[in-house]
């Protein structure tokens, strides 16, 4: 849809809702185009190209909130849906925080989230990048005979936002990604390794050969992996594993979970919740960040929030509603798509790098586990219990000695965070949640008898 048409539509629907009885209304229109190719054994297995246009409308009346979303943008349908939603809104409970957000000014600086070079990529370009990564994977190691696939894609998204107090604000953003999943075969056993890079700018994307090499390293490292006996030992999480761990930890920092007593970090602001080596930041305005945007899903300006400062819990992360309920400044964490209500989520959320040597985190361990992959749903941010299936390598006298799988690591989240004995300096963003390598003083490794 042409830009002007989209802007007009978003505004028209919002005004229509106000005329029909909404005291406040907010309209969020998302228009995006995604292209992805998947290559396997040199052949294009999938080519998909799609455009999404969807509208989300929030209405407020007497401190009650209602929401509708649709991809059917015909005027007659929109009017009917808006009226139905307004009458449904009468069923909701009035809540003081059910109002349009107050802190609205969007960031004026260039956040560098839109790269015309990404927009110009054609399917043929994506096919070429993916083929080159796959060929490179085959060339690296003779144990790589096949891949699950190699994927390359782009997304271009444009947001049109308007509410009762803001006539319009918009932004557009690009993402490009390339991933490889080679499969290593040895002695009848197969193991796969995946490496994915995602960036806002094409020039920042890792080269296909690099992606292939790191994916091949991962697959090959798993061949011959076995379980180890159960033990309580120091455990090092690689940067990627630590990022996945941090993602799982996020709900504990959500102000809504804190208010509803669903977080083990409730009531701990001002207290040490992690070792002094740990600083955790959420930064929705980080230049070129994968989750950077000038305003969040409620029109609130994004910014940098230090959540944990050298081990001390400083802030929880907020939507406009929870900020009101806790009488705290908003943090711009109302994350949404056109078809969901804004909910507290991470923007660019990370454990900050330190000056420490990443290598030393392993070298200093006499006997322990180096974890490169985590799987499963064992992070309970309500009770604070932690247990996950992991894979990686056994550490013997500071050296990675043998590949490990079929083990779990477990502990209590509060003790784990306080017991972090080192944070590396290898922070890299390939996802919006990231961490450098971290080392836990001691966790329970559950393995063979």
């Amino acid at each position, binding site marked *: 849809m042409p830009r002007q048409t989209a802007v007009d539509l978003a505004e028209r629907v919002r005004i229509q809702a106000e005329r029909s009885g909404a005291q406040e209304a907010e309209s969020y229109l998302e228009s995006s185009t995604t292209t992805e190719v998947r290559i*396997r054994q040199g052949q294009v297995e999938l080519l998909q190209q799609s455009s999404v246009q969807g509208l989300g409308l929030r209405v407020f009346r007497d401190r009650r909130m209602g929401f509708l*979303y649709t991809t059917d943008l015909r005027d007659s349908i929109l009017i009917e849906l808006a009226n139905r939603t307004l009458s449904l809104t009468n069923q909701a409970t009035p809540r003081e925080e059910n109002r349009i957000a107050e802190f609205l000014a969007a960031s004026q600086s260039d956040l560098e989230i839109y790269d015309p070079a990404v927009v110009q990529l054609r399917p043929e370009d994506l096919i070429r990048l993916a083929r080159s990564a796959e060929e490179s994977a085959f060339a690296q190691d003779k144990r790589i005979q096949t891949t699950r696939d190699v994927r390359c894609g782009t997304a271009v998204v444009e947001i049109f936002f308007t509410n009762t107090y803001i006539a319009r604000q918009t932004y557009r953003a690009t993402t490009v990604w390339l991933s490889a999943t080679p499969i290593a075969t040895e002695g009848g056993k197969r193991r796969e390794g995946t490496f994915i890079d995602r960036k806002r700018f094409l020039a920042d994307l890792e080269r296909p050969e690099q992606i292939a090499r790191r994916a091949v390293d991962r697959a090959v490292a798993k061949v011959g992996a076995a379980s180890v006996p159960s033990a309580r030992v120091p455990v090092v999480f690689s940067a990627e594993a630590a990022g996945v761990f941090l993602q799982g930890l996020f709900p504990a920092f959500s102000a809504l979970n804190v208010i509803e007593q669903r977080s083990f970090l409730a009531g701990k602001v001002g207290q040490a919740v992690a070792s002094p080596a740990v600083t955790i930041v959420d930064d929705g305005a980080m230049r070129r960040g994968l989750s950077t945007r000038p305003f969040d899903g409620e029109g609130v300006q994004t910014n940098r929030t230090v959540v944990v400062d050298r081990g001390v819990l400083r802030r929880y992360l907020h939507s406009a509603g929870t900020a009101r309920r806790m009488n705290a400044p908003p943090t711009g964490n109302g994350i949404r798509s056109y078809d969901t209500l804004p909910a507290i989520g991470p923007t660019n959320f990370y454990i900050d790098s330190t000056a420490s040597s990443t290598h030393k985190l392993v070298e200093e361990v006499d006997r322990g586990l180096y974890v490169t992959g985590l799987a499963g749903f*064992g992070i309970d941010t309500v009770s604070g219990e932690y247990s996950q299936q992991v894979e990686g390598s056994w550490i013997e006298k500071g050296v990675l000695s043998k590949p490990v799988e079929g083990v779990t690591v477990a502990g209590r989240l509060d003790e784990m965070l306080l017991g972090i004995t080192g944070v590396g300096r290898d922070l890299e963003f390939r996802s919006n949640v990231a961490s450098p390598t971290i080392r836990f003083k001691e966790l329970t490794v559950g393995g063979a008898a």
Partner: protein
Amino acid sequence: MGIGQELRDVLNEETVNRILQESLVKGGDFADIFAEQRFRTAIVLDSGKIDSVTYGYPRGAGVRVVLRNQTGFAFSDELSYSTLLDAARVASSVVETQSRTNPLDVTRRNPGQPFTIVNPAPLMLEGAKLDVLRRMDAAARAADPRIVSVRIEYVDEVRDLLIGTSDGVYVLDRQYLVGISCTATAQSGGKRGSGLATLGGRIDADYFRQVSPEDVARRAGLQAVRQLDAGPAPAGPMPVVVAPGWGGVLIHESLGHALEGDGVRRGTSLLTGLSGTRIASPLVRVVDDSSWPNGRGSFAVDDEGTPGQRTVAVDEGVLRSYLLDKQNAKLLGLRSTGNGRRMSYRNWPIPRMTNTYLDRGVSDPASLLSGITKGFYAADLGGGSVDTTSGNFNFAVREGYWIESGKLTRPVRGAVLIGNSLETMQRIEGIGNDLVVEQTRGTCGKDGQMVPVGVGQPTVRFSSITVGGSSI
């Protein structure tokens, strides 16, 4: 209005034929159109207040062109002949071939419904839905004074779909689904615990008179409270007994995903080439059944227009059938088993489970605990995942107990169970006669596509599974 009438207004047999012809103009083996219109209602009740009410009305259509293992796909949120012709052209750009396939003219077929729903629950008045949620909230709170928070999430949908395929199928169908989850949090002396209980399925409004929403909500409250007194879970391999019903997620993860035809066709699934061979204990019979009454994974036709069916995938421990969609079935020289599913019109179909269960055995469930000196009982599980290449799987335990001298003793918290598919399937040494197929929860994610599924099993005993707790 008739089922799918609004879709049919845009896509009658004639327009479908024309779009399919355009899809195959550059060649290809197969093409299809999938149009969909959903009406969703979602309600969140948190701390006793109706937090939000949502109506969702997504609709659109996707066009797919297949040449052997190659797929071109495009969709449009706008349902019109011209946008779908554009989508057809984009989808067909993947194929470059001399071989031309002329699509068969489509003929309308009426899907045979596997079960009848007289008064679909999603069509209840909003007031009736809210009443169920308020009753659940009160019951969960009343379960114990230590309950500090209750959140209830309700979502329902009426999904109309229209499928037209170049092998001559034209089908319209309507699917109803309701899911309600109740999450309770208990707190005492600095300890917190959470409990979850669910209800719903492809149900009639009458369901709420047969199943007590209060009882379900109370279970969530009690599960949360039990976590407060639970001690650390054990670590290491030991005999494990898993409770019936939702425990079937173990079969779903350990075996189900490896049965799906895409991994088999690519040769990446660990079950590739094992058809007709023993892959599990002789006690094991695994069934995938999209006709299971009211199941979350049930349907009349899959998202490629193939009628749903009951597939015995494993019988007496021997691999009998994979779970197949059209494309992978053809590449394997087999027929679709009606497992081609998509999350929405924005996705192309891939082979997926429907309602998958480990079939009933002969043992008295109580007898399965006897003889275990020290072991683990999983009364309720959380989510799980699997790597289908290695077969390594895991799932979280929501509610677990020690088994000591053949009896359930102390509750434990913070456990996961991990294992390798084929090893674990050999270690099944007892199956109860108490099969339960869980119809109220289960959303399976694969390749970014989420679909509702059912899972099930009777009580099952494993000679050994690695429990990942913190106590050694």
